[in-house]
């Protein structure tokens, strides 16, 4: 005969089991309920924040980037000819906005200053309820905004940033970079340097004295020494210097036969023409022609440097004269809208905005952890760089890197760089662990 006897112990057990059973659904649905995140646009507007330098030393590149973002919003919303929306594969965007709703945007001026960049990003997040912030022209801006966005739980798609740190020791779960980096520049340029200038060279580095300059100097030094080159000296120059003659004079008697300028922006626009005017390129050293290399090139800088850029080798993330479908579509759309071909700064901004929108469409939600997972490991093609992957372990895009040379006979003001080769994606892929850093958690903070 079965008797139902309840003592205190079974009662407690039963109660415990009951609580677990009742609580279980809550644990499973917790994800769904936890989806009230920073600036959830479900009931409001979908706002993208475009934060670029509009004043200060990099204003020109910043304004180009901003124009490209505005174009990207038009294309996402189905206005204009659609640009790269026609060439991106695979694509989830339908040309009717994101998740069926139109995208709006706000803009800000970073003044090429980390504090102002963070002020701008906070305004976009706190006041304008931006769901995503994007844009930068220096690594300082990018890293500052990226770490802020991690704290606020808003995704940050960086613009032009070339330092290894952005996806290296300062990488963040909420930050993504499409642009290439100094390490990839070094790896990409090395075989072309060997081919053009041989493996028996003595290099002299002039390096802008800040984080980006150092990482680039290190990357290029490692890559060229692996070729068999010798590094004669690495000299740091202060940022924003106008006159480089005191740094160029020692190069003449150093026994070096290649000068490597780890300069960007105004530094490069000043140092390269001065080096050429110094007659360095007409010299002979160690029985060879003296050469100058600028590892990181941009067409705006090339225009600024004028005649001096002819024949100089460097690397680039993208170039408007490439002949793939994506590049053609973007160059056409941008040219029709603004009357000039886009720069790589514009290109990377445009691509980042489209990639974010597409990731939201694929994830089916704006909930950042889902969007991040949609971007991590995403393989795509048709954005002007050939097959590309967003690596999940450091949020760096891997794609071909262009090696370019200053055009000897430019046919127009914009035709300043020739693509002399591409280094494959496999060659520029590296182990994510070499730079350290950690991405941090997926779960968004409440802002």
């Amino acid at each position, binding site marked *: 005969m079965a008797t139902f006897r309840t003592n205190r112990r079974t009662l407690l057990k039963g109660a415990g089991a009951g609580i677990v059973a009742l609580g279980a659904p809550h644990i499973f649905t917790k994800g769904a309920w936890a989806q009230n995140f920073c600036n959830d646009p479900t009931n409001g507007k979908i706002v993208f924040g475009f934060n670029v330098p509009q004043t200060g030393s990099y204003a020109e590149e910043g304004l180009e980037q901003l124009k490209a973002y505005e174009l990207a919003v038009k294309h996402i919303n189905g206005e204009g000819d659609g640009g790269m929306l026609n060439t991106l594969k695979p694509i989830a965007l339908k040309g009717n906005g994101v998740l069926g709703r139109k995208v709006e945007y706000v803009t800000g001026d970073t003044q090429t200053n980390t504090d102002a960049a963070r*002020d701008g990003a906070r305004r976009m997040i706190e006041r304008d309820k931006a769901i995503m912030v994007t844009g930068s022209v220096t690594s300082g801006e990018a890293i500052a905004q990226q770490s802020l966005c991690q704290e606020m739980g808003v995704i940050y798609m960086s613009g032009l940033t070339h330092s290894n740190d952005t996806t290296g020791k300062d990488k963040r779960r909420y930050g993504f970079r499409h642009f290439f980096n100094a390490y990839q520049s070094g790896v990409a340029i090395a075989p072309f340097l060997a081919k053009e200038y041989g493996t028996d060279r003595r290099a002299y580095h002039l390096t802008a004295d800040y*984080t980006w300059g150092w990482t680039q100097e290190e990357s290029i030094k490692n890559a060229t020494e692996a070729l068999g080159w010798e590094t004669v000296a690495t000299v740091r120059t202060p940022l924003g210097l106008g006159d480089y003659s005191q740094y160029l004079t020692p190069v003449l008697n150093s026994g070096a036969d290649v000068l490597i300028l780890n300069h960007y922006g105004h530094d490069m626009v000043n140092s390269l023409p001065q080096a050429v005017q110094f007659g360095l390129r007409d010299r002979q050293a160690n029985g060879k022609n003296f050469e100058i290399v600028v590892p990181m090139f941009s067409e705006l800088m090339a225009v600024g440097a004028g005649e001096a850029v002819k024949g100089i080798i460097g690397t680039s993330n993208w170039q408007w004269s490439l002949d793939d479908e994506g590049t053609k579509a973007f160059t056409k759309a941008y040219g029709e809208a603004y009357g000039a071909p886009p720069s790589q700064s514009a290109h990377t901004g445009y691509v980042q905005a489209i990639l974010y929108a597409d990731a939201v469409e694929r994830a089916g939600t704006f909930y950042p952890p889902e969007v991040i997972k949609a971007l991590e490991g995403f393989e795509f093609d048709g954005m002007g760089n050939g097959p590309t992957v967003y690596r999940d372990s450091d949020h760096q895009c891997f794609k071909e890197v262009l090696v370019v040379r200053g055009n000897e006979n430019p046919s127009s003001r914009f035709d300043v760089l020739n693509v002399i080769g591409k280094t494959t994606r496999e060659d520029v892929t590296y182990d994510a662990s070499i730079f350290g850093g950690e991405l941090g958690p997926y779960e968004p903070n409440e802002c």
Partner: protein
Amino acid sequence: MFSLSRKDLVALAVFSVVVLTMPIWLAPLGASYPGLMQKFAIYAIFAIGFNILFGLTGYLSFGHAAFLGVGSYTTVWAFKLLSMDVLPAMVFAVIVSGVFALVIGYFSLRRTGIYFSILTLAFAQMSYSLAYSVLTPITNGETGLLLARNDPRYLDAIFGAQADVAGLPQPTLIGNSVSGYTGFYLCAVILILAFYLSQKIFASPFGMALRGIKSNQTRMNYTGFNTRPYTLAAFVISGMFAGLAGALLSITDPLAGAERMKWTESGNVVLMTILGGVGTLFGPVIGAWLIKYFENIFSAINTNMLNNAFSFLPDGVQGFVVTVLSKFVGEGWQLTLGLMFVLIVVFLPGGLVEGFHRFMARLRRRKEAPERVSSTQPAE
């Protein structure tokens, strides 16, 4: 010791109300979000401190941003090494920037006028260059000093606080997070205290001595009054205010970048003080708010927003108005600020505070005017 004159007490009460109700009255101006209001409070502290030096002694320091930077870096290092609590960080920031000001002041104050300005500018630019490149192990250079999850934080380790945080640790005030509105109110309370302190200094014999130095230092010296300790004290106090402001910048947003020490930032605080009114209590605060408002709100207006705002106008007119106005907003915000600065310096040398006084005087005259008319009317 803590007493104030009746006039100052009223001023303090009005000031406190204005500061604490910022979230309400800034809303129609599009500026009532924590990030900007924190900046309003912090830069007001910076300007108040600067005014103690410039407004009272007349010594124009062109390198005050250096102290702001030193305060910021000290705070982030205190977060990294000691504790995520803001109190030790603030105390350290004020002490370190005070010592830094003592050293720079000791050398710079040997000269007056333009030479003093140039000396402070040179020191500040030196600090900036050091922070940007040479001292990168300490300052992290261009990237800026950031917190990391595996920082030692020895005090927190001893007390076992903040042991299990998923992401980056957040600054706290005795266990309470200081982000968003809490952060603003923390800054606001410190701003009111700073304002009170500056009132006390303005009203004290020490303040009177500083004013004496401003009007004629040579005469002060001839009467047997040693001015050096006074100017140095004013310089250090003002440096400590800047350090406190720098600390608050790092507390509300734990990152310290070298750009904070750039000469443009030093120039900014001079502009703030001159715009508002040099040597007045309210002036620097108003100037700081105005400049930060322009920098953050005007710079964010783009042609799209202008087009929406003027959509009521006929097409051609709208296009024209938007084209003209767009030159003054967005990337042109500095142009607007520059124009305003020129107008104020030319027409209101005493800054906006002088403008306010003139306006009030005119109102009073208008009120009095009818009486005068009636009194001069001949009696019947």
